[in-house]
C-alpha cells in the first residue's frame, strides 16, 4: 500500500493554499498513514467500522471543522475542510462518510437550523466524537425524490410531537446517539433530533453490502415515537430546503474526498507499473499503460482545480448548489473510473485486498449513488442551463 506523504499535484494547486490549509492536510495525511491504512482492509473484509478511531478523529478536530471555535470546532476555511476530506477518503470512503455525516449532515443542521440550547448542548459533544449522529432523509420508497416522504410528525398536546415512519440506508444509524430525522408535518417538512433509546425508535443495521463495508448503514424505525418540541424540533427551517441545505454541505466534501480515493489508486498503479516487468520491460514503458496513467493524472488534476475554485467560492459565500452538483458528479465519476483503470494495471494483483484498489472502486459505487445520484446531478445541471427541470 502507498504510504506516501505527498498527494498528486500535477498543476501545483498547493501553491494556492495557505499555510494553515497545508498543515490541516498534513495532519489528515499523517493520521490516515498511521492509524487507517494499517487496519482498514481488515475492517472492510469483516464489515466492521473502526470505532476506536471515532474519539481520535474528534480530538484532532475532524468533525465539523469549518464550524466556529465557539462550539469546539476549528473554524477552518472550506478549502481546508475539503483537503481533510481528500485525506480521509484516501484512507477509505467509509471513514470520510462517517466524518461527512457527523459534520455536514448532523452538526451543520443543528448549527444552521437549531435553537441556541440545541447548539450549546449538541455541538461540542459531536465535535469531540463523544456523541455520534446520523441523518435520516431517504426512505424505502423515496430516494431521489425525498419530497414524497411518508414519515410523519404530528403535533401533540403539551409541546410534544409524535413521529411514525421508516428511513433506510442511513449511515451511522445503529451507532448514533442522535438522529436528525426529516418528517412530513402539517407545516411542511421539518427536522427533529431523536435520541437513541427513545421509546418506539430502533435502528437495525443492514448487512451484506459489497460497498462501504467499513461503514455502518441502517434502517431507522419510528413507531409512535414521542419527542419534546423544545429539545427535538429544529426551529429555524421548514420545507425541503432544510435537508437539501445539509446535502449541499456534504456533497461539497464528497467532491474533494473522492479525489483522495482516486489519488491512492493512481499512485499505487503508477508505482506498480514502474516495477512490474513483462516482456523484459516495466509495463509503464508500454504506450497503452502510459495512456491510462496519463489520463488518470489528468482527471485528478482537473478535479482538483474544480474543487479548489468551488472551495474559494464557498469561502466567499457565492457558490451555488448547482455548482456543487457539478463537482460531486464529475469527481465521483472520474474517481470510480480511475479506480477501475488502476485495477487493470495491477492485473490479478488488482483484485487483492493487499492493494487498496478494489476496496475503493467498490466504495465509490455507493458514493456514486448517495447524496444525489450521478443522474440526478446531471439533471440539476441540465435544469440550471436550460431552465427546464427534466426530473419531474
Amino acid at each position, binding site marked *: 500500500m502507498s504510504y*506516501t*506523504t*505527498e498527494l498528486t499535484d500535477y498543476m501545483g494547486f*498547493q501553491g494556492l493554499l495557505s*499555510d*494553515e490549509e*497545508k*498543515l*490541516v492536510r*498534513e*495532519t489528515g495525511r*499523517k*493520521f490516515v498513514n498511521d492509524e487507517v491504512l494499517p487496519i482498514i482492509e481488515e475492517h472492510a473484509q469483516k464489515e466492521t467500522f473502526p470505532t476506536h478511531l471515532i474519539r481520535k478523529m474528534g*480530538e*484532532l*478536530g*475532524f468533525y465539523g*471543522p469549518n464550524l466556529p*471555535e465557539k462550539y*469546539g*470546532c*476549528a*473554524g*477552518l476555511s472550506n478549502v*481546508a475542510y475539503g483537503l*481533510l476530506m481528500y485525506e480521509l477518503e484516501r484512507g477509505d470512503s467509509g471513514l470520510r462518510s462517517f466524518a461527512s455525516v457527523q459534520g455536514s449532515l448532523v452538526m451543520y443542521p443543528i448549527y444552521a437550523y437549531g435553537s441556541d440550547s440545541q447548539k450549546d448542548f449538541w455541538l461540542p459533544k459531536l465535535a469531540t466524537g463523544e456523541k455520534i449522529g446520523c441523518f435520516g432523509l431517504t426512505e424505502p420508497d423515496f430516494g431521489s425524490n425525498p419530497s414524497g416522504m411518508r414519515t410523519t410528525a404530528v403535533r401533540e398536546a403539551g409541546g410534544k410531537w409524535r413521529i411514525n415512519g421508516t428511513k433506510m440506508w442511513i449511515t451511522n444509524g445503529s451507532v448514533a446517539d442522535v438522529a436528525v430525522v426529516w418528517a412530513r408535518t402539517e407545516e411542511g417538512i421539518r427536522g427533529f433530533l431523536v435520541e437513541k433509546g427513545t421509546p418506539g425508535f430502533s435502528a437495525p443495521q443492514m448487512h451484506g453490502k459489497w460497498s462501504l463495508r467499513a461503514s455502518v448503514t441502517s434502517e431507522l424505525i419510528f413507531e409512535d415515537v414521542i419527542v419534546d418540541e423544545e429539545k427535538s424540533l429544529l426551529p429555524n427551517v421548514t420545507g425541503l430546503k432544510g435537508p437539501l441545505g445539509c446535502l449541499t454541505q456534504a456533497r461539497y466534501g464528497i467532491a474533494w474526498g473522492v479525489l483522495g480515493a482516486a489519488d491512492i489508486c493512481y499512485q499505487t498503479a503508477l508505482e506498480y507499473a514502474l516495477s512490474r516487468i513483462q516482456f523484459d520491460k516495466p509495463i509503464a514503458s508500454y504506450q497503452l499503460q502510459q495512456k491510462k496513467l496519463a489520463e488518470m493524472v489528468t482527471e485528478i488534476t482537473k478535479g482538483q482545480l474544480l474543487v479548489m475554485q468551488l472551495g474559494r467560492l464557498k469561502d466567499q459565500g457565492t457558490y451555488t448548489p448547482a455548482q456543487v452538483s457539478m463537482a460531486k458528479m464529475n469527481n465521483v465519476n472520474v474517481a470510480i473510473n480511475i479506480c477501475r483503470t488502476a485495477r487493470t494495471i495491477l492485473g490479478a494483483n488488482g483484485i487483492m485486498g493487499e492493494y487498496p484498489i478494489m476496496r475503493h472502486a467498490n466504495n465509490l459505487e455507493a458514493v456514486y449513488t448517495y447524496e444525489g445520484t450521478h443522474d440526478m446531478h446531471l439533471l440539476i445541471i441540465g435544469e440550471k442551463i436550460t431552465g427546464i427541470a427534466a426530473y419531474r
Partner: protein
Amino acid sequence: MKLLVCIKQVPDLESRFKPNAGGTWFDEADLAFRMNEYDEYAVEQAVQLREQLGDSAELTVLSIGPDRVVEAIKKALAMGADKAVHVQDQAVADKDPWQIASVIAAHARGQNYDLIFTGMQSQDRGSAQVGVALAEQLGIACTTTIVGFACEGGSITVKRELEGGLKGVVRLKTPALVTCQLGLNTPRYPTLPNIMKAKKKEIAAIPVTELLQEGALADTVSFHPPAKKGGGVVLEGEVGALVDQVIGILKEKTAVLR
C-alpha cells in the same frame, strides 16, 4: 524558564532530487517541504516541558530560511510553542553549519534562554553540527542524540543511546542545549483547532543580515547522485560448478568466508 527550539524545513525525502545549476546543492523546484523529522522530536519535548512548567515557562521556536519556512514555524506553534522568530534568509543552503549556528547564537545571546532544543541532524544536509556549534558559540553545556529527557528542580537529566544498545545518563546544568534523536517521544499531531489558534501567535521576522557575522568554515564542493553501479555478475553452468564459483567469489571479495 525560557525555552528555545530550533527547527529546519527540509524537502520531503520521497522526492526525486536533482543537483542545482551550481552542482553544490539540490534544485528546490517541484519539491514539497516539511519540518525536519528530528526537529519534531525537539518541538515535542520542548512543548512537553512547557506544559509541565506551565506559565512560568515560555517557548520560542526559531527557523532560518525563505518565506516557505513559516509553514514549519506555524506547525510548531500549533503543536504548542508560544511565539516564533523567523530569520529571513533566501540563501540558507549556501551557509555552512557554523554560520547557521552563529546566526542563532546572535539571536540567542540577548535572550538568555535556559534550555535550547534542536534536532540531532537535518534530514537533508545531515551534518549534525548546528546544535553542537551553537552550544559552543554560546559557551553552554550540550548533550547530543538524547532519547530520554527529564527536568526537575532546574536540573536536566537526559538519556543517550550508545553503540551496542548501551544507555548513558547525563545530568546537565542550565543553560544547556540538547539535540534530539528518534525514540525520544512521539510527536503530537497539530490538531485542527490548534492550527487555527496558532494564527494569533506572534512571529517576529528578522533579516539574516542583522544576525550574520561569521564567515563559512566549510564549503560544499559538489552535490550529486551516486554513480550508477555496473550490472551484477551472472553465473551460468551446472549446480556443483556454480557453488564452487560462488564460494570463490565470497572468499576473494568479502569477509564472509575465509
